[in-house]
């Protein structure tokens, strides 16, 4: 380890005071795994067309906590909202109703220890970032822990606001579980406190929907253009569960987003959605894995990118159907809208099927805004540039209808609008 790491409040892998033994063992194991793993290289299939050098973030000093005045409106009545600054929980507003746990990790390890021991974190960084996942584990200290109890149905989305300030590295963590027959939605946002600070954020997101649960998760990412983000996600839908995960990437100079989603148990289903609007020299690199572990499961992935300027995107996705996972229904679509001649979209869709009676499709397209569509809008008096923007915004907004959750759709579309 380099000497910069001494700047940490707690060294990676070192025990946290007062933390239970199992938690400190997890941190120690994280450090061990980190030291044993190699940094990814371009030869790694999961980093093709990517920028593995930018993933070497361990050398960066962790951000020094600052006295930052963060001015946000109080959460409306009845809304549970976590506010994190540089990954540390500053406040939780609202009262969790009966059957719901909404705690920062450093309290959860004491207060709901039996629920989370062995569950945190399940994530291994299987899509090329094992070393980063281990590093995250070695530094695990705080995060959001949310359990929706069996049968509990929440109307209002739970909110998680992540604010980043100061130069350097920080990490966030979300552990979200919807119990059997539960129904809930969560919206997480990433914002920079200012336009100057170059933040490096390593995020781990773990979303699980147990038997018959209905869980919808939306992440909106609006970091400033100097920041970079590595986001490692895991979603798991059990028998007859319905898990939807969506992300909207607008900010950051470089974003690496990995999502491993598993459908396991009869009639499990998941929807995986993403919208990205990279501009200038922004680069968004997204990798996905749709793992069909049981028969009669459904998964549907839709990723859309609208690329401006010299922006670059990478999409690599694999539908993987296990042996015996018959009657799988799996879809994967990546669509790129090229808003400039100098932008670059790389798509690598893939399929691996080891079962019978399977319905699968995958595909990717790259196109410009159709001249006929622009003509139609112009013929209504809308100027060509505005028409082009309106079509691109619609192209993106369209994805969020699939959330089938009005509140989350509204939040996503409002956030998206800031980009057009």
């Amino acid at each position, binding site marked *: 380890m380099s000497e910069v790491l001494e700047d940490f409040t707690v060294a990676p892998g070192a025990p946290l005071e007062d933390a239970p033994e199992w938690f400190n063992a997890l941190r120690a194991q994280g450090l061990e795994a980190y030291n044993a793993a190699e940094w990814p290289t371009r030869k790694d299939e999961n980093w093709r067309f990517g920028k593995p050098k930018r993933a070497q973030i361990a050398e960066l000093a962790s951000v020094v906590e600052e006295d930052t005045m963060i001015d946000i409106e109080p959460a409306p009545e009845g809304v549970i909202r976590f506010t994190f600054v540089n990954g540390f929980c500053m406040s939780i507003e609202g009262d969790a109703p009966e059957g719901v746990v909404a705690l920062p990790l450093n309290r959860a390890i004491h207060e709901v220890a039996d629920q989370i021991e062995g569950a945190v974190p399940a994530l291994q960084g299987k899509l090329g970032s094992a070393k980063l996942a281990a590093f995250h584990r070695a530094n695990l200290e705080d995060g959001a822990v949310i359990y929706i109890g069996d049968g509990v149905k929440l109307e209002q989305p739970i909110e998680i606001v992540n604010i980043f300030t100061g130069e350097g590295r920080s990490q966030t963590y979300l552990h979200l579980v919807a119990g059997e027959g539960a129904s809930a939605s969560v919206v997480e946002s990433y914002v920079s406190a200012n336009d100057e600070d170059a933040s490096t954020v390593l995020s781990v997101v773990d979303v699980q929907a147990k038997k018959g649960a209905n869980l919808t998760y939306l992440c909106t990412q609006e970091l400033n253009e100097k920041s970079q983000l590595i986001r490692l996600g895991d979603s798991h839908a059990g028998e007859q569960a319905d898990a939807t995960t969506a992300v909207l990437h607008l900010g950051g100079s470089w974003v690496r987003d990995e999502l491993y989603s598993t459908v396991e148990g009869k009639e499990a289903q998941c929807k995986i959605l993403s919208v990205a609007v990279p501009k200038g020299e922004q680069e968004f690199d997204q990798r996905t894995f749709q793992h069909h572990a049981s028969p009669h499961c459904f998964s549907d992935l839709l990723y859309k990118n609208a690329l401006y300027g010299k922006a670059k995107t990478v999409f690599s996705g694999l539908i993987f159907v296990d042996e015996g996972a018959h009657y799988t229904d799996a879809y994967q679509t990546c669509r790129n809208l090229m808003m400039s001649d100098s932008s670059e979209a790389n798509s690598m869709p893939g399929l691996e099927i080891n079962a019978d009676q399977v319905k699968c499709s995958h595909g990717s397209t790259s196109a410009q805004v159709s*001249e*006929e*569509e622009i*003509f*139609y*809008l*112009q*013929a*209504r*008096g*809308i*100027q*060509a540039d*505005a*028409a082009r923007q*309106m*079509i691109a*915004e*619609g*192209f*993106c*907004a*369209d*994805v969020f*209808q699939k959330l089938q959750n009005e509140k989350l759709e509204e939040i996503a579309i409002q956030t998206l609008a800031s980009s057009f």
Partner: protein
Amino acid sequence: MSLIVNNLQANIDDSPILKGLNLEVPKGEVHAIMGPNGSGKSTLSKVIAGHEDYEVTGGSVTLDGQDLLDMEIDERSRAGLFLAFQYPMEVPGVSNANFIRAALQARLPKGEELDAVAYYKSLYEKMDILEMDRKFTARAVNEGFSGGEKKRNEILQMMMLDPTFCILDETDSGLDIDALKIVSQGVNAMRSPERGFLVITHYQRLLDYIKPDVVHVLSDGQIVRTGGPELAHELEESGYDFLKEPVTA
């Protein structure tokens, strides 16, 4: 004050489609243009609207004295021209209400905001005339609409934008008789001494509902006959075969 097309010539991919077309539609009148497939009917509407696939090689088009051919597509619309499309485009992810609102907003001076309450009041009134369900405001423009719904949506836009001159390009295609009646009602409600209409159609049927003042026959890029409403009936009975006969003086 009117739409005047003078000796209009236009090509697509270097082949001439309009070959010196002359037409004058005074305000307050409804003119129909009929003609066989390939005669240039849709080309005429697109050239007037400014579609870039067509190259204007000669002639002029003026609306109330303004030179349309010198304007951008969107400027022509804001100058009072409206084209109801034969095949309206689908615009995924853009709600109908936001689309029409943007078109109206584009007509306002910079910095002036459309009054949302008045807008929706007006929108709902017009939708009622066209017997359109309110759910069409939130749906993406034309996406998943039936043929008839798309055409009603064109007429809704026309009513909202309140143009001075309307071109209906084969608005009757894809319409069943009930939809045809409703669409015609919408058009007839807009007839006024201040507004001109050019109704392009292949069939006489539409003209039973939107009664034209003048009927023109377009063939091979030129107007070859002009007459009253009875001309449409004559064409319905005898077809366009007369066009094949040599013209005798």
